[in-house]
């Protein structure tokens, strides 16, 4: 019990760290996911190939491996001098983008083909059709799977703790190293995650109710 009250600053810092990392990598995953989903349904074969390769690569790689790549390969080959937080953001964002892409693609496929045909027949380009007609109508269908994806992302961000990024799960290591009762630490950490994931599913349920499209 006292572990929480005595170390409130550490818990708070970890809690906020997890929220920030989840928000940032979630935003990155959304942007990338939408773009890659656009690639995957585009009429241009090289773009489709790139999209498929992206999804295959990031969906089938263990997240821990991506973290290791971000820590030890990316700085050497691409960009040296990235902070641990940025590296965690990249690993989580890229990994999750593959799942976001597939959720969005399944949503795109639920929009009747006639909608896109009508848009193209009044002279819209492929990207206008996607942005103005198809994606807005796909939104509602993709909300439930996206909710699951972001909850998974929240929990996946715990891996960053093992790579010395300040976040909720890392607090556990910090405090158990100091010899506190591990059961209580775990309980409070778990509760912290629960607060975040419940908030996410609540927000998404709200969104789902707001975004009905009548047919």
């Amino acid at each position, binding site marked *: 019990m006292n572990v929480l009250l005595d170390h409130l600053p550490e818990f708070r810092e970890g809690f906020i760290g997890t929220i920030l990392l989840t928000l940032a990598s979630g935003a990155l995953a959304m942007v990338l996911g939408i773009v890659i989903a656009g690639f995957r349904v585009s*009429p241009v074969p090289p773009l489709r190939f790139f999209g498929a390769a992206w999804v295959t690569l990031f969906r089938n790689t263990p997240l821990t491996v991506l973290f290791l790549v971000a820590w030890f390969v990316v700085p050497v080959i691409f960009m040296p001098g990235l902070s641990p937080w940025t590296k965690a953001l990249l690993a989580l964002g890229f990994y999750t983008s593959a799942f976001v892409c597939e959720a969005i693609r399944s949503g795109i496929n639920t929009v*009747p083909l*006639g*909608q896109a*045909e*009508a*848009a*193209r*027949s*009044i*002279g*819209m*380009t*492929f990207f*206008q059709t996607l942005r*103005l*007609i198809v994606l*807005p*109508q796909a939104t509602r269908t993709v909300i439930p799977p996206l909710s699951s994806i972001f909850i998974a992302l929240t929990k996946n961000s715990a891996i960053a703790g093992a790579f010395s990024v300040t976040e909720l799960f890392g607090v556990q290591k910090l405090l158990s190293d100091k010899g506190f009762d591990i059961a209580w630490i775990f309980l409070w950490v778990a509760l912290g995650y629960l607060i975040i994931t419940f908030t996410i599913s609540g927000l998404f349920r709200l969104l789902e109710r707001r975004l009905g*499209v*009548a*047919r």
Partner: protein
Amino acid sequence: MTEVSVTKDAKPAADDLVVLKGVNKHFGALHVLQDIDMTIARGEVVVVIGPSGSGKSTLCRTINRLETVDSGTITIDGKPLPQEGKELAKLRADVGMVFQSFNLFAHKTVLENVMLGQTKVRRTAKAEAEAKARTLLDRVGVGSQADKYPAQLSGGQQQRVAIARALAMGPKVMLFDEPTSALDPEMINEVLEVMQQLARDGMTMVVVTHEMGFARSAANRVVFMADGRIVEEAVPDQFFSNPRSDRAKDFLSKILHH
């Protein structure tokens, strides 16, 4: 619209708006379009009829390249259809299309449906686009429904909105792909009347339909298709009273006498 018909009278043969030459298309093993040659003059109303599976819908959809063709050429107003991309999008804006299943944008109001192409494709100012949209909606008789969503309208109303949406682009030619086939019988006429009016105003139209009454009264020419070929072309009176081909005689006897 009057200008158009004047031009047509001045030089009837030279003013070809849509020209299909040697068009072939396969769906897998099925040869849906076989050596189609067709010319549509400016201001002309061509009605395409034929049994189902004869390729008439596919023919209609190739004209704005919603279906690609395997061989042959299609030109619209002297320009051959380009490959998928910006050029094609630009050309499609000049070719109005009305679908069997209406395909109104489900997440937009009726007014937005008619404005969207103007503002996003033609880059017309909002106020101007709205004024034009309201005029067109009044013209097709659904002005009072402007703020509703498509799902709140009857089929006949939706199809009239779809016609207004296509007209808002100021198209050179309008394609109708079985516009009344998904409608309840009592709603067919309200759509046909709008199309009749368009025809009288001198719009160039290609209409795939099963409405023989419309073909008789509005068409300049009837094109009869069967098994992917154009079997017969004639003015409506001649086609309906005295079809030359056996295939057309057979088709007409099935639909006209019961």
